[in-house]
C-alpha cells in the first residue's frame, strides 16, 4: 500500500492508504479526526469540507493520492481554542441544532470569506447554498456569517 504525506492542522503525517481512498476517510478512519463529517460521499452536501492548501475542498471525493504533500486544515485546526470569529459568531447566534453539518458550513465560510471579507446577504446565499442542513439552520448561518464579518472574520 502506498504512503502519502499530509500536513494536517500543522502536524505532518505519513499515511498508508489505497490511492483512491478519499481524504475524508483518511482523516476520519486513519487519523481519527472525526470533526469532518460524512453526509453523502458524492460532493452533494458539503458536510465533509476542509481546506486543502487554503482552498475549500470536498474531502469525500478527493482521493488521497491527489492531495499528497498538501497542507490540510480541518475544523479541529481552524482555531486553537474555538475562537475563530466564525466559531464565536456561531455560538452567539446559537446556530447549531443537531450540529452535524456545521463543521462543513464553517469551513466553507472560512474559505470564501478570505476573498469576500465583507459579504452581503446575497453573497452569503451565493457562496453557502451548496451546503445542506436538514435541521434548517440556514437563516442563522447567514446571520452568523454577517455577524462575524462585521466583527472582522
Amino acid at each position, binding site marked *: *500500500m502506498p504512503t502519502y504525506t499530509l500536513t494536517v492542522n500543522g502536524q505532518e503525517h505519513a499515511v498508508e492508504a*489505497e490511492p483512491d*481512498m*478519499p481524504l475524508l*476517510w483518511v482523516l*476520519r*478512519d*486513519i487519523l*481519527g*479526526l*472525526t*470533526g*469532518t*463529517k*460524512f*453526509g*453523502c*460521499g*458524492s460532493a*452533494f*452536501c458539503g*458536510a465533509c469540507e476542509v481546506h486543502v492548501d487554503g482552498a475549500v475542498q470536498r474531502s469525500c471525493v478527493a482521493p488521497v493520492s491527489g492531495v499528497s504533500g498538501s497542507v490540510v486544515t*480541518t*475544523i*479541529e485546526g481552524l*482555531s486553537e481554542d*474555538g475562537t475563530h470569529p*466564525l*466559531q464565536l459568531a*456561531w*455560538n452567539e447566534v*446559537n*446556530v*447549531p*441544532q*443537531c*450540529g*452535524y*453539518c*456545521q*463543521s462543513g458550513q*464553517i469551513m466553507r465560510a472560512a474559505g470564501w470569506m478570505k476573498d469576500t471579507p465583507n459579504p452581503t446577504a446575497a453573497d*452569503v*446565499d*451565493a457562496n*453557502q*447554498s*451548496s*451546503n*445542506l*442542513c*436538514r*435541521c*434548517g*439552520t*440556514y*437563516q*442563522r*448561518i*447567514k446571520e452568523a456569517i454577517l455577524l462575524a464579518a462585521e466583527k472582522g472574520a
Partner: protein
Amino acid sequence: MYGLELAGVIEPRTNLPGQLTVLNVSRRRFLKTTALGAGSVFVLGVFSGCSQDNLADWPDRAEPIGSLEEAGFKPNVFVGINEAGDVFLVCSRSEMGQGIRSSVPAIIADEMGADWDRCHILQATGHPRFGNQNTDGSRSIRNHFDDWRKAGATAREMLLAAAAQTWSVTPGDCSMAVHEVRHADGRTLGFGELAATAATMAVPASPAFRPRNEWRYIGTEIQGRDNKAFVTGSATYGVDVQVEGMLYAAIKRSPVLGGRVASVDDSAARAVSGVRDIVRLNEHTFPPAFQALGGVAVIADNTWAAFKGRDALQVTWEASDHDGWSTGAQRAAMDESVRAPGTTVREAGDTDAATVGATQVVEATYHIAMLPHAPMEPPNATAWVKADGTCEVWAPTQAPQTARGSVAGALGVDPEAVTVHVTFLGGGFGRKSKPDYCVEAALLSQAAGAPVKVTWSREDDLRHDYYHPPSAQYMRAGLGADGAPVSWLHRSSFPPIGSTFSNGVTGPGARDLLSGVSNMPYVISNVRFEACRAIAHQRIGWLRSVYNIHHGFSVNAFVAELAHAAGRDAKDYLLELIGPDREMTDLFPRPPVLDTARLKGVIRRAADEAGWGRELPTGHGMGIAGHFSFSSYVAHAVHASVENGQVRVHRVDCAVDCGTAVNLDRIRSQMEGATVFGLTIALKDGIEATDGAVTTGNFDTYRLLTMAETPETHVHIMDSDLPSGGVGEPGVPPLAPALAGAILQATGQPVRSLPIRLT
C-alpha cells in the same frame, strides 16, 4: 399500537405526567457504579408511574439494579451534587438538535436554585430505570417538565433543610440564593458544603414549585450547551465512535422489500484491499418491525474499503411480492381507492343529502409523495459482542431502550446483557427511533468476533428508510348560499405505520385518522370521514409530525379552496369555520384537547405579524393555515410569488402556542427548522421507485431546500402559562398548506400535490 405510541400518534398509557415520587438514593449501592454516583454525595431519583406504597420498603434497602427493575422502580431523573458543589443531572432524552441538553438543566436549575453553568449533563444509557426514553412525539418537555421541576424543587427543599440544621435555625430563616443557601443575617452555605447533610434530610412529600417570577432560565433565550463542541468538531456522533480493535461494515440490502439473496459472487469484493470478510445476514421476516433487513455485509479495515467491497459484490435476488411496485402505480391505486367509499370512521348528520342540496360543490384530491427522513448523519451503529455474552452498543438513537431490546432479541440474550450508549444524533426526525441499524451492528460484531461499526451510505439511507407514507385524499364540500360549508367528506388513503408492525394491514384505521381528519376543528353539521385502502410496499415509519403532514395539508388547503370558491377572505373564512371558543372534549376524549380559542389565536397572530390583507404586487399572494398537533398550536402565514411557473417564498410568519415556553431560543429554532423542512416537502421531489426499487439515491435526486431558497422566517411565541406542548414537530404541518393558499391567491390555481409542480 406499538409503533403509533412510539410515533406520538397516540399517547402511551404509561409515563404520562402525573404521579411522581422522589427518593433520596444517595446511599444506593447501584449508583456507585454510575458516573453520577461515583462523585456525588447527594443524589435524588425521581420515579414516575409507581406509587409511594410500592416504594414503602425500599429506601432502607440497597439493591442492585436488577432488583429495582423487578420491583417496577423507574427513576427517570437523577440529580446529584458532589462536595465541590457541582450538580450532575442525568439526561434520559436524546439530543438531536432540539436542545434538550440545554433545557433540562435550565428547568432543574431554576427549581433548585442552581447556577446553570455548574450543572453537568450525563447522558443516560438505554435502560427501563429511566422511564420512557423514546425521544419522539415531541414529548420531552410536555411529558417531563414536572418531573424535572419536582427533582429540582425536592433538592432545593432538602438543601434548605440541611442549611437550617447546620445553623440550628428554622428553615424559614433560610432562602435559596444562586447555588447557595442564605440566612437572613447574610451567612451563606454553598451546595457543596451542604450536600452531605442534605443527603440525610427527609424527602419532602410535595415540594412547592417556585413561582414563574422566580425563574431565571425557564422562558428565556438559553444558550446552547453544546455549541462549542459542535463548532470545533469535538462532539461525538454515532458515526464518530471509535473502539479499540473496531472493524467497519457496509451492507448490500435487497433493492426490493422482502427480496432474499439468491446468489452471491463475492470474489471481486474479497479482492478489495482492506476487506476482511463477507458475512451473510439473514433476511428479515414480515412484519419487518425493527429487524435488520438482512443481505450481504462486507467487513473491512475502514469505511471506504467496506463501501468499495460492498459495491463490488455481485448479488442476485429472489422474486419478492413487491417486485412490481412503483410510486406511480401506488399513487394510481390510492386515487382509485379514494374514488369509492372507504370505511367510515366517524359521521354526523347526512353529508350526501346536504351536498345534494348545496349551492356549490367543491371537490379535490390531494397527494403527497413518499418522503424520507434523510438525517445528515446517516444511520450507523457500533456494537461489540464480547466473549462473556454481553454487548455494548454506541448509537445515535432516539429510542435507546428499543435498541436495547431489539439487539437483545436478535442476539438471544437478556436485555440486561446489552448496554446502549447514546451519542449525539446528527439529526433524527424519527428515523433514529427505529434501531434496525443497531441490530445489524450487533449481528455483525457477533459474526466478526470484534467490535463493528456499520455505516449506511446516503444511498442506503434513501433506499431503505422507514418512509413517510405516500397519500391520496379526496375532499368534498357543499357550500350554502352564504358560502359556508354545509357538508364535508374526507377520504384518506395511505399505507399506515401499522403495516411495519403487523401483517395484513390494508389501509389506515380509525386511529390513523385522528391526526387532523376525524377530529378536525370546523363547525359543520354534516360530516363523514372515511379510511381508504392502501398497501405498503416499503417499511413505513413516522417522520417529523407523522400523519399531520398530509392531513394538515389537505384540510387546510381545502379550506383555502372553499374560501376562494365562496369569494371570501381566506383568514376570515378559516376563523369562522373554526367557530366559537371551545375545548373539543367530544372529539378529544383524553388530553391533549384541542382548544379552538388557542388555534384561532395563533392564526390571528400569524396574520397580523405578516400584515395580512395588505396589497401585494401582481403574481404575489399570501396564504394561512393553522394546525394542532403534539399539544401545540402553530399557524403559518406565507407570502409567496409565482413567476414563469417558479414559486418563490418571500417571508414566513409562524405563530406558535406551545403553552409554557421553556427555551425561547430552541422553540424559535425548531420553528425555523420546521419551515425549511416543510418547504422541502412542498417544493422538492419525494422518493421515486420503479420495478419494486427506490431509484432516488442521493442528494442530487432527493434535494433539500438550500439557503438561497430559505425565506425570511419570523417566529412569534404566544405568552402562556398553560402546560407545555411539543415543539419539535408541530411546526411542520401548516407550512405547505399556507404556501398552497398563497399560490392560490397569486394565480387562482389550487395546489393539490406535493411537491408543487406548476404548469
